């Protein structure tokens, strides 16, 4: 009897030691937390639509990874960095969340990415825009998926200058994001031989753009760059049409425009706008198939690049867990960098050492009302911008842990 119990104990011990070497999922569940703006200015372009996209990724993956269930939770950070940080801390410490997805608003991104880095968790940024997230403020376990300011600025800025729009005036939202976008675009414009004539910083958020538009008009610049987002861009475009700015020969460049913005503006007002986007639902059969599935769950809307990016990032994360045989953040992060990204969202996408997912971007022009044949038929694709051309080259990296390696 005694011997038997000793044997049992020994077996148990061996088993206990052996388990970590086998497939390991902490706490017996992989928990995905979608943290974004659920009710504020960005809720149409990410919000509940991103949660739905993540749920679809989990369903398409089979609901289980390494034999353990996958759960999705979500929260509203209200565009406040302190609320975002609190949720992230609680999710990781109490609710055992393994990965935080989406993250609009650069201020919140910075706070949450730091927490994830310190507590060894993965964060997948889809809606956040600033290029510093994979540069000065990069994290070994932080990934940036859909787009960034650099890619948008380069795509739209270079294209407009090439078409003859070589003098620019900026309407810039007066906060970190707007300044960053203006700076990136001004660089792209100057590099391609254009000239920046001036800029005006408007309060955020801003209802009435008429006075700023008048200043832009007085500058006689060929292109008015809108270094703002969401409701501000919508109002600026709408009022530019009202003041006859486009009819008088100046062109508008929307630097960060989501398809949900175009939907709310209507084609009559938005036509002709040149935008850079990471995804368009109507690009090919694959994008259409996925988007229609998403649309059926979202009252007939079509996904923005941010929402589609959430699906792609989550899917890639789950594949990396499968390949790594564990959900431990560093091991998963390593696998994420090794496996190429191939889905409806990105073809041969590559996750770089600094956490940037490099994939092809699209330069698009908003269609005229008479060219739009069915609901949400909004973009004419002008050009596919290869990923390596769109994103900031890794040779210019300011990422501290990469610089140390060198």
């Amino acid at each position: 009897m005694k011997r038997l119990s000793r044997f049992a104990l020994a077996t148990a011990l061996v088993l206990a030691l052996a388990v970590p070497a086998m497939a390991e999922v902490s706490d017996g569940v992989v928990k995905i937390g979608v943290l974004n703006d659920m009710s504020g200015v960005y809720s149409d372009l990410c919000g509940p639509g991103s949660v739905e996209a993540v749920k679809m990724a989990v369903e398409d993956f089979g609901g289980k990874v390494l034999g353990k269930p996958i759960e999705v939770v979500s929260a509203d950070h209200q565009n406040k960095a302190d609320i975002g940080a609190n949720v992230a801390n609680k999710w990781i410490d109490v609710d055992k969340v393994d990965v935080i997805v989406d993250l609009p608003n650069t201020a919140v991104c910075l706070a949450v990415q730091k927490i994830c880095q310190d507590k060894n968790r993965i964060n997948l940024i889809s809606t956040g825009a600033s290029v510093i997230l994979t540069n000065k403020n990069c994290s070994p376990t932080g990934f940036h998926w859909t787009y960034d300011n650099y890619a948008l600025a380069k795509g739209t800025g270079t294209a407009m200058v090439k078409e003859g729009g070589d003098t620019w005036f900026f309407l810039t939202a007066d906060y970190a994001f707007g300044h960053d976008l203006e700076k990136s675009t001004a660089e792209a414009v100057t590099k391609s031989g254009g000239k920046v004539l001036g800029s005006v910083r408007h309060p955020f958020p801003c209802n009435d753009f008429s006075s700023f538009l008048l200043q832009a008009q007085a500058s006689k610049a060929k292109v008015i760059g809108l270094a703002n987002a969401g409701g501000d861009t919508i109002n600026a475009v709408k009022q530019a049409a009202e003041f006859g700015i486009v009819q008088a020969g100046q062109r508008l460049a929307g630097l960060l425009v989501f398809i949900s913005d175009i939907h709310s503006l209507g084609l009559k007002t938005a036509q002709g706008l040149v935008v850079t986007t990471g995804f368009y639902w109507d690009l090919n059969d694959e994008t259409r198939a996925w988007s229609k599935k998403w649309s059926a769950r979202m009252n007939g809307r079509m996904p923005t690049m941010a929402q589609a990016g959430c699906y792609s990032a989550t899917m890639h994360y789950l594949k990396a867990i499968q390949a790594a045989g564990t959900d431990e953040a560093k091991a998963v992060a390593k696998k994420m960098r090794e496996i190429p990204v191939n889905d409806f969202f990105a073809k041969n996408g590559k996750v770089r050492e600094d956490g940037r997912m490099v994939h092809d971007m699209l330069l698009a022009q908003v269609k005229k009302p008479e060219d739009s044949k069915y609901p949400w038929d909004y973009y004419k694709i002008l050009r596919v911008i290869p990923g390596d051309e769109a994103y900031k080259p890794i040779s210019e990296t300011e990422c501290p842990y990469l610089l140390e390696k060198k």
Partner: protein
Amino acid sequence: MFELIGIPPQALFGQMLLGLINGAFYAVLSLGLALIFGLLNVINFTHGAQYMLGAYVAWLLLNFLGINYWLALILAPVVVGAFGILLERLMLRKLYHLDHLYGLLLTFGLALIIEGVFRNLYGISGQSYPVPPVLTGGYNLGFMFLPLYRGWVVFFSLVVCLGTWLVIEKTKLGSYLRAGTENPTLVQAFGINVPRMITLTYGFGVGLAALAGVLAAPIYQVKPTMGADMIIVVFAVVVIGGMGSIMGSVVTGFMLGLLEGLTKVFYPEASNTVIFVVMAVVLLIKPAGLFGKAS
């Protein structure tokens, strides 16, 4: 050609005109608020939500019933005003004998609920309302391009403000209103139905908010938060003008619009705060507001 601190006069005139246009919105909105506060002693925090409702009713009328802008300009204020009357009858009325604070809390709560419902129904980015065909295009005034619609907004707001002021200051109905504000018990003793007058006044004030909403629909995006963005500024206007002062709120509305317009030229970053700076200064020097009577 003279220049004022590096700004050419053309740009300056343009900005002043734009300021007046924004001032027109402030004036119509603060007029309704001042009216309601004057007679009901209620700080109507739903005013922003009712402005938003006005814009949405116009949008719904156009998209579901095909009713055009001109009819909406009459229908939307009536519909939203009726909703206001219902609100007054069923809820606000019960709070008159209590402190101001209760009315404020009730109206604030209602504003949040209304906004939340519309956010759920229509999302945050809002809808586009087209400028009525007759008023599209604009005139080149030499120093700026004036969209016809904006000119119409200033003209129409002036008419509405002046009309309201005339009714209150020059007619018998207005005199009842003013008397009711001073001493409701005494006026009731003369056989005038004061509670009904209060209900109708509230309905009219709410109707004015909705009217401003319809006016704003073609310029701004019709969206659930449009009222919340506006209401704080409008409250500042009322406070600066003097709570309850009809003329004060109208004049202050236009004046502050002008001031804001000028700030956008000289120091755009401060254009969101300049009104509140003025408010703080006025409160320090003249606590009852520019046109208010010290009690």
